[in-house]
């Protein structure tokens, strides 16, 4: 999943507005950041970045750290959810490792770009609707708010086209 992770971060921001979205988005993408860094240092390892065990450890470390820092168990739980949601979301669209030597699981929709797009767009719209409810009443009517789902879906299309030019 790609922009769905950002949409889930927005949903969590809507449920817990005091947790900065500037933190929730990178936390929701944390396994991808780790994967990217591992490529930069020429030691890519999907078990370290995307396995169920590594995501559970990363989510717990980040959640505990933020929970202690903010002195709020609820805030820490939201950060934990942002991180942990990455594995569950990827489970829908991809195939992800569980642990070293363990089974790979997932629906593997990367091979079905239309379904991948439909599901990602659906996640974006649903999460945006929930996020929107946390906004002041007058802000909900502002058309600039539509840039969130439209912008995210646009990024999905561009990134899909870059990765698989044959799709478009």
């Amino acid at each position, binding site marked *: *999943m*790609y*922009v769905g*992770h*950002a949409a889930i*971060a*927005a949903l969590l*921001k809507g449920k817990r*507005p005091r947790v900065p*979205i*500037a933190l929730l*988005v*990178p936390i929701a*993408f944390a396994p*991808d*950041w780790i*994967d*990217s860094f591992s*490529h*930069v240092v020429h030691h890519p390892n999907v078990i370290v970045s*995307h396995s169920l065990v590594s995501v559970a450890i990363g989510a717990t470390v980040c959640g505990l750290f933020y929970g202690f820092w903010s002195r709020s168990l609820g805030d820490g739980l939201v950060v934990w959810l942002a991180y942990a949601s990455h594995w569950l979301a*990827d489970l829908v*669209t*991809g195939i992800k490792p569980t642990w070293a030597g363990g089974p790979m699981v997932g629906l593997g929709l*990367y091979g079905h770009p239309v379904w*991948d797009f439909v599901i990602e767009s659906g996640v974006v719209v649903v999460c945006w609707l929930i996020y929107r409810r946390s*906004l*002041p009443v*007058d*802000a909900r009517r*502002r058309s*600039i*708010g539509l*840039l*969130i789902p439209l*912008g*995210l879906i646009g*990024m999905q299309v561009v*990134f*899909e086209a*870059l*990765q*698989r*030019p044959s799709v478009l």
Partner: protein
Amino acid sequence: MMVGPPAGMQGFAARFIIGVALLGPWLLLVVLDRALRRTR
């Protein structure tokens, strides 16, 4: 899809695209969330 470079692309171009892919949604949400929550 997993955030990664286009097939066959390596080096700076691949890192640039991954960087944009990871920072783009962050920038969009930070800017728009701030704009929407600011009281007018």
